[in-house]
């Protein structure tokens, strides 16, 4: 019974922790612009993150070391430094975007401009990261993020044209008045939102913090293979509500407040409050994960003491990095860059560096020295290789599509 409860809690955490500001922005914008015709990208992205998170989790459970630690050892310091530089930069931008999402959620609840909340959010984030135990901070916000299920409930109250939505989803072509490059740009952004680089590094480092071993592999697989796809359904729900309300009216979304409107129209004030709470929890949880990820990767590369389980005095450099990352995120937002625009940039640059994140995981997951007989089988390698090709295509196409379409027009 206790094991079942732990398993259920893990799966619920994976579901609630799936959506972050990138998923929220990309799914709602894609739904408003293209209806459900980009839903297939979400499905592909979820399969990709499942495949690679399973590899990262297995590598960690067997070797009891974080993936980035092994990447440096396996590929050497030079290649890993390139990986580190790209990942750290994108992760800090992601942290800024997530903190912007938190501040925007608070603005919707208070009507006080989000920029005034940014320093408060930064301070709160640092305090929570400093004081809360790893398991608590992972679970509290991920479980609260489950409130985003209101998007799925609201969808049923908006009387959607189910057959029309299915028609859109089954015809992956641009909507009327849209062109292929714009469709491609949103496809890349949506794909990157499901595979944001920090996710696998946090997943693997968190597994070390949670002291996973060989006997936790089946639990890890259940979290990944059930939790992530159901979490992907939340993203699909966000896309579907936008497709139902905004697409027929030709409303393009450029704010988080707009994206929540379908819930208010479908469910009223109670639904609206739940949606704002869900957005707050999802972005705050993701901000913690990105902050930790940024510090994890640098500390693991340089071989410093790291982790929430270690007393701050013993991992001073790790905690300093955490603080510097949070401060950088705050300063980034205080330049007055629009958090939604920052998220769009973050998704494009995430797409560009995706191969640097995922190729090393595939290499390490095939290394007998670390995994013994638990190396990738033919299915995992086939799925991993196919996804790597898709990732490379997305990485090469991301910047030209961003420039050619003016970030989606």
């Amino acid at each position, binding site marked *: 019974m206790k094991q079942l409860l732990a398993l259920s809690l893990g799966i619920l955490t994976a579901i609630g922790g799936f959506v972050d500001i990138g998923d929220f922005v990309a799914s709602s914008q894609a739904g408003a612009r293209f209806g459900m015709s980009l839903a297939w990208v979400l499905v592909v992205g979820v399969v990709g993150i499942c495949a690679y998170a399973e590899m990262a989790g297995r590598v960690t459970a067997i070797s009891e070391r974080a993936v980035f630690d092994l990447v440096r050892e396996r590929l050497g310091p030079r290649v890993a430094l390139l990986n580190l530089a790209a990942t750290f930069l994108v992760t800090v931008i992601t942290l800024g975007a997530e903190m912007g999402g938190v501040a925007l959620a608070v603005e919707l609840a208070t009507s006080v401009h989000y920029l005034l909340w940014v320093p408060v959010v930064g301070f709160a984030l640092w305090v929570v990261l400093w004081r809360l135990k790893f398991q608590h901070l992972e679970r509290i916000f991920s479980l609260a993020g489950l409130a985003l299920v209101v998007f799925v409930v609201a969808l049923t109250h908006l009387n959607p044209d189910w057959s029309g939505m299915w028609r859109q989803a089954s015809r992956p072509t641009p909507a009327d008045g849209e062109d292929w490059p714009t469709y491609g740009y949103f496809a890349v952004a949506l794909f990157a939102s499901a595979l944001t680089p920090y996710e696998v590094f946090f997943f693997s480092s968190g597994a070390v913090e949670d002291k996973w071993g060989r006997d936790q592999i089946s639990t890890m697989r259940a979290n990944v293979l059930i939790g992530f796809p159901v979490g992907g359904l939340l993203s699909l729900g966000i896309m579907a509500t936008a497709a139902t309300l905004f697409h027929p009216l*030709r409303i393009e979304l*450029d704010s988080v407040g707009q994206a929540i*409107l379908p819930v208010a129209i479908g469910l009223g004030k109670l639904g609206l409050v739940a949606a*704002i709470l869900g957005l707050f929890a999802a972005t705050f949880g993701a901000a913690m994960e990105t902050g930790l990820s940024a510090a994890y990767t640098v500390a693991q590369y340089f071989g410093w003491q790291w982790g929430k389980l270690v007393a701050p005095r013993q991992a001073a450099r790790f905690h300093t990095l955490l603080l510097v990352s949070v401060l950088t995120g705050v300063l980034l937002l205080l330049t007055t860059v629009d958090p939604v625009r920052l998220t769009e940039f973050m998704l494009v640059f995430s797409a560009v560096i995706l191969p640097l994140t995922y190729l090393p995981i595939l290499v390490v997951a095939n290394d007998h020295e670390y995994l013994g007989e638990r190396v990738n089988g033919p299915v995992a390698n086939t799925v991993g290789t196919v996804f790597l090709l898709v990732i490379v295509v997305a990485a090469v196409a991301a910047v030209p599509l961003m420039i050619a379409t003016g970030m989606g*027009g």
Partner: protein
Amino acid sequence: MSWRSRNEVAVALALLVACWFALAIPGRGGPDRQAFDTTVAASARDGLSNVRTAWLVGDAHRGGRVTRTYLSAVLDHSIRAVATAQLRLAETPPPGRAQAAVRDALRTLLDEGERAIGDLVGAVYRGDTAGVRAAVAALGAIGDRLADFVDRHPS
């Protein structure tokens, strides 16, 4: 690997990156006419999106479905977004007389949209139910006219 071959690899990589950007950049350029058309289309789409958002949220307010703080944040964003669209349009000179007429038509619609959103904000603030109803109706009509404009002026 020798230094010479390293340099060759570096030059090859630099050329690859240059080609990559060169592939992307032609999509941006174009004559003034094209830049003007693109600006008009983008401004009209932004105006349409934000006028219709204000219309939806105003209607939701009438039905008691949104909180005051949320309403205020969304309307504030809408009014700023329409103002940005107006500014962008004003900064792009029309290349000819026909384009000047197009710009004036869109400017009128955006001005009306901004005013209607302002009226909605004022009516909500005063608790003026009739004023809210009138502003929402006006936003619906302006949204339809903006949609017609967008149809007639695709980018």
